[in-house]
């Protein structure tokens, strides 16, 4: 009996391998670094972000015949890597009230107040901020990548920015 996976494999196997790998390599070169940094910034762990991006890229390669047709393959990779990193953290008994560990961002940013404010965001809010400001994705692209409705992305982004402003406002109100 044929399965979807087998059909896909057949298609995949018949494709000239060198072309496929060149195409994937090009995608990798263009997006791996950004995805790794984005995941690292979201979870606050650059090393784990890189590992998660590696894992996501490996999965992307496995499914490249399918992923290549997506509007935003990098978005798919970001979400897979992000989910993998969270799952990895659970598996490895690494629990954190906020998974984000600002100290682990590589390199250490100069805007310490903003770093703290970002670290105080929830994971979901941080993810939309990263998609919007690090990856420069639109609302629609972000929604697609995170498997959310655009309205949800807008809402989360709005709340996240309000939270950031509130944190930064409190910081700036302190006497200098």
């Amino acid at each position: 009996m044929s399965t979807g996976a087998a059909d896909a494999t057949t298609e995949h196997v018949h494709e000239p391998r060198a072309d496929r790998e060149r195409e994937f390599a090009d995608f990798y070169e263009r997006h791996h670094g950004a995805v790794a940094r984005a995941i690292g910034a979201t979870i606050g762990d650059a090393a784990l972000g890189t590992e998660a991006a590696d894992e996501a890229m490996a999965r992307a390669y496995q499914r490249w015949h399918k992923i290549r047709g997506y509007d935003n393959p990098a978005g798919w990779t970001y979400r897979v890597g992000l989910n993998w990193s969270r799952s990895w953290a659970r598996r490895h008994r690494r629990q954190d009230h906020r998974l984000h560990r600002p100290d682990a961002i590589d390199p250490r940013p100069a805007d310490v107040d903003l770093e703290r404010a970002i670290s105080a965001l929830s994971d979901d809010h941080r993810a939309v901020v990263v998609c919007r400001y690090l990856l420069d994705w639109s609302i629609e692209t972000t929604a697609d990548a995170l498997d959310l409705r655009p309205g949800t992305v807008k809402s989360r982004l709005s709340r996240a920015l309000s939270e950031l402003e509130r944190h930064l406002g409190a910081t700036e109100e302190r006497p200098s």
Partner: protein
Amino acid sequence: MSTSLDERLHRYFDALDPEAVHGDPDRAIVRARSRRRHQLGGMAGCLIVVLAGLGIVGATLLDDDSPGPVVIEGEEGTGQRWIVGSSDRELGLLREAWAVGDDAIIGPSFVEPQDTEEGLRGLQVLRDDGDGKVIVDTGIDFLHDLAGAGDDLYAVGEMGAGMSNSPPGELAIAHSSDAGRTWDVVTTDVELPDDRSQVQIATSDDFLVIQARRGVDIGGQTAHVLHTFDLDELGTSVASRDASTGPWSPRASGGGVIVGAEAGEPLWSLDGTNWTEADPPTEDALMVAILSGEPVWIDVNFRVIDVGGIQTDLAQLLGAPEPFVSHLLVTSDGDELQVVVRADDSPDGYRLLRTEDGIDWSTTPLLGPPDGFDDVSYVDSHMTVDGEGRVMIDAILRPSGTDVLGPRSVLVVEPDAPSTPITGPVEGTVRDVELSHQLIEGPEVPFFSGTTGGFVDDGFVVWGSVQRAGSGPDDPLESQFMRWDGSAWATVTTPLVEGDPDDGGWGRTLVADDQGLALIGLVDGGDGTQLIESTDGGRTWTTAALPLEIHPYTFPAWSRTASHLLLGTFGGPNWFRNDGAYEESSRLVTPGGAYEVNPVGDDLWLRGSKDIDGDQVSWTMKLAGDGTVEEWTLGDDTGQMNHVFPLRDDTVTVVEENPPLLTTTVSGPSGEVVLNEVDGLEDFLLYDVRATGDELILVGADGRSSMLTGVGNLSNVLTLLWSSDGVSWSRYDIALDEGLEVGGSLIAVTDDQVLVELSAKDANSGEPSTSSGFAIVER
């Protein structure tokens, strides 16, 4: 004008160095191929040959300048040492590491694609000792995993096959009894399933378990096959079974093995043949160890450990309101449970906790990162205990001044490493004490919250905010000093400036002790802040200038022994002033006033609360005589009151739990007592706490359980409790008329007397009662 948030965010993220991540598409391709057996099918045959020879080339001394591991002993008496692995790439990539012998590390490592002609990645065992770094020949063609402790190590893999995307080879187990130098390999009678995707091993004292994952669904419930082998006969499986478990690796603990633990049904066994499906105490509890033949659980927040039904909150155990339990490791050698937990966010904030019964715990501070390293990470670490009782924790060190991961290293804790007992819950006692008290009806002008005062002559002086009788609720409050001379009330006038907008706050600085009365504030005709003193109960006053600046909305905290201190914490910017100099307090970045200042010796103990994201979070601060902050604790965001008080040479923490518990727990060096569970107390509801340094005095109401249901009234009895150790308590009750509800606060405490403010109201109408006032308890 400040930079817009948009610009700041872009600048922030742009600053993350794009060059910090170096990728190589081959890495992804190889990684993908290693699990792509479904798609590639028979095409993978070529890969089998490639991987079969990968890295398995005998004991090969790597050709580099690696200096080998460096042993860094902790300070004398710590009983700990770091074995810092070589910092070069190969050992930096060790997945995990064991200490073997006194100065060697062994562990599985990935081979990087660029290290092989074929550009493929696999697993190998590296041994790093004083003679150099060696790729160990385990005799296994395709290595999956490594386990063991001490000199006895075990490896599992396949013979005649390579990579998981090929048909499985013969399952093989290798054993080393000389700490990984030489190995004997045997093939087994087990046939691995065609779709095995990951093969892992865990060893107990006399058996080992191999777990083969079926399929590639990582992260959820996955199917596994378990095979058990006696360590004396590794070629023949003595038991096999299917298991559907979470994604955790099999783990050795307490003489047994645990498989699966996350959101599933963990299985555990002490013999590898009879498996028990564990029954978690709560739905989300995770099984983390086996102690004395029974499961040990931890809650999903990794904060409460359950040993045989005895639950220990690690936060309370460590006296850390906000413990960093993000890197918690747990294991057991059968008789003793070992837990690594981070107690604060400093690099040396990790502790090793041990217990045999979940009741008595001890703690050993773990060494921080050695010189040359800034940080230590226990992420993806494991902890083992060898036959000699040495606890070995593998970790990654971060070289100073970098943000890169450094070498995989091992922290070794010797069995004789000093530890400090932590007393767990103890049974408190309460005894009734026969004392006497005098009820004093309050002055005509009712006092509101914030009363302070002290004993003078034959009576006492108190300060409070008042609202004149008949005035409306919007009328301003005024501060009022009143003296009770033993028979009547009299108003006390002071030189304080009339209409001082902060007089309400300044009034709280009233000190009444055996030297008389003292205030600080602005006085008519005075220049700057004045010390105002009276030795005749407030009838006459003297003033003297103080080198203190007054700032609006400050909340001064001072005592005679620390009169140069002024703490501004109320309603606005917060800072400390010390003889005119000030230090911004990062601890109080949001408004949060001290609502009590408690002078104890030369120190000031302040407690208050602050708003954090809408939650009132309690805080305690100890200011030394020179103005330095010697203690600072911040409660969690659950809203519970959580304050630290001095008691003899130590401190105790009083925690008032939120509804629906409404319990009071006192924990200190003598143990932890839940007052509501102590015989002699029915249902104690805490109102106020005062510490003298030698004693802790509580005031509250007992027998108010009906309040929890919303039916019935609060108690008409005010209960005083006092203790010099937090465990043994004395009790004295002040009973008002039936039908009243009474509240109270502590105004002053001496060796002989306690002054309590009483607020009473009719339980039915809620109207204030004339019984409100004060009580002097003679003791």
